[in-house]
C-alpha cells in the first residue's frame, strides 16, 4: 500500500463581496483510498479582518491516507459562506481543487463560483441576500450535470499544502 500525507492549512480567502467569511471544507477520494488518521472535513472559524480584503482562517489540515490505486486521487472541496453581524449566513461560493500529486510544499489558489438565479432572484439577492444553493454538494467536485448550471465568478480560497508520499516509487509511480 502506498501512503500519502497531506499537511498544511487553509490560509484564507479573498476577492468576495464582503469579508466576514467562513468555509466548510471536505476531502473526497475514490474507493481505493483509506483514511488512516486526521479529519477529512470541517468548518473554519468566522474571520472578520480588521484591515484589508482577505479573511484569514489558518485552518490546519493533517491527513494520512493509504491507497491501492491512483484512481480517485483526493480532491479538496470548499463552500465559502458569509456571516453578517446578526449571525445570518449566505453562500458566497463553491470551489474544489485536486490535492497536489508531487511531494513538497505547494501554494494553491482555488477559484470559486456561485449559482446564478433568475433576474428576479438576483434582484432579491441584492436586497435581502440569500440565493440559490446546490441541492447536493457532489456537484462541486464532479463534472456530471454541470451543463445545467448558470454561475457567476466569486473570489479565491488560498491554501498551503505539503505533500509527503511513501512507497509510490515501489509501485513504479513517478511523481
Amino acid at each position, binding site marked *: 500500500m502506498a501512503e500519502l500525507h497531506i499537511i498544511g*492549512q487553509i490560509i484564507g480567502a479573498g476577492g468576495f463581496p464582503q469579508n466576514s467569511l467562513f468555509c466548510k471544507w471536505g476531502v473526497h477520494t475514490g474507493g481505493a483510498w483509506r483514511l488512516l488518521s486526521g*479529519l477529512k472535513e*470541517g*468548518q473554519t472559524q468566522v474571520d*472578520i479582518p480588521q484591515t*484589508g480584503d482577505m479573511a484569514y482562517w*489558518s485552518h490546519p489540515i493533517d491527513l494520512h491516507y493509504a491507497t491501492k490505486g491512483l484512481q480517485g486521487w483526493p480532491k479538496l472541496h470548499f463552500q465559502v459562506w458569509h456571516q453578517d453581524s446578526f449571525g445570518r449566513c449566505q453562500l458566497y461560493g463553491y470551489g474544489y481543487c485536486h490535492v497536489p500529486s508531487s511531494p513538497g510544499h505547494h501554494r494553491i489558489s482555488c477559484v470559486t463560483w456561485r449559482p446564478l438565479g433568475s433576474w428576479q432572484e438576483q434582484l432579491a439577492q441584492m436586497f435581502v441576500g440569500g440565493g440559490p444553493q446546490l441541492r447536493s454538494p457532489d456537484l462541486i467536485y464532479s463534472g456530471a450535470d454541470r451543463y445545467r448550471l448558470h454561475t457567476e465568478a466569486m473570489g479565491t480560497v488560498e491554501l*498551503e499544502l505539503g505533500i509527503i508520499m*511513501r512507497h*509510490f516509487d515501489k509501485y513504479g509511480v513517478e511523481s
Partner: protein
Amino acid sequence: AVMATSNPSVFLLSVNGQIEGANFPEYDNLYCKYCFVYGHDWAPTSGLEEGITQITCKGSESSHKLIWNFPLETTFKSTNPSGWPQLVVSVYGPDVFGNDVVRGYGATHIPFTPGQHTRTIPMFVPEPTWRLQKFTSWLLGRRPEYTDPKVVAQGEGREVTRVRSQGFVTVSFHIITKDIKKLGYDTGPSSLANTPSATSGWSTGEQPYNME
C-alpha cells in the same frame, strides 16, 4: 572499517530559525510567546519547546516594523509524519489601561523540506459575540482569550468561533531532516526560493517589510 548501514526506525526533524518580528498596524509594545504542538508519534529530543520574546516597539524609521529576532532551535523525532509539528505563536501587548491583552494567535506547520523557508503567519483574536460584551471588555481591559493557546493548532471546534485577523508574525526556518528518505518518505525537492507563505492584504501602501 566499513560503516554499517543503519536501519533507522525514527527520523529526525531539526529546526533552526527565528521569530523575526511582526506587523500590527494598530498596536505597539508587543511580546510574543511560542510553543510547539505535535501529534502523539512525535517527541522533542533537544531544544526548548516554548519561550517568550522581549517586548519590542516600532522603530522610528518604518512605522510598522516590530522586531524580535528571537532564536528557535529544536529537534524532533518521529516514526510517522502524521501530527507534524506546528509552531503556535501568541502576541500580547498593553491596552489603554496598561493590562496585557492578547493581540493575536496564529500557527503554522514546520516546513518539511530541507533548506530555508519564511512563513508570514496571520494573527487573529477571538471576537466577543455581543456588542455589550465588546463594550465591557474594552472598559475592563479583558478580551476573550483562549485558555490554552494550543487550540489554535487544531481544526475541531472552530465552527462556533468568530475571530478578527489583525496582524502578521514573520518566522524564518532552516530545516534539516535525517533518515526521512530511509524510512521511505518522499518530501519533495529541497527548498530553493524563499517565498512568503501568505500575502498580507493591507492596503495602506506600505510594504510589509519581509516581502522579497
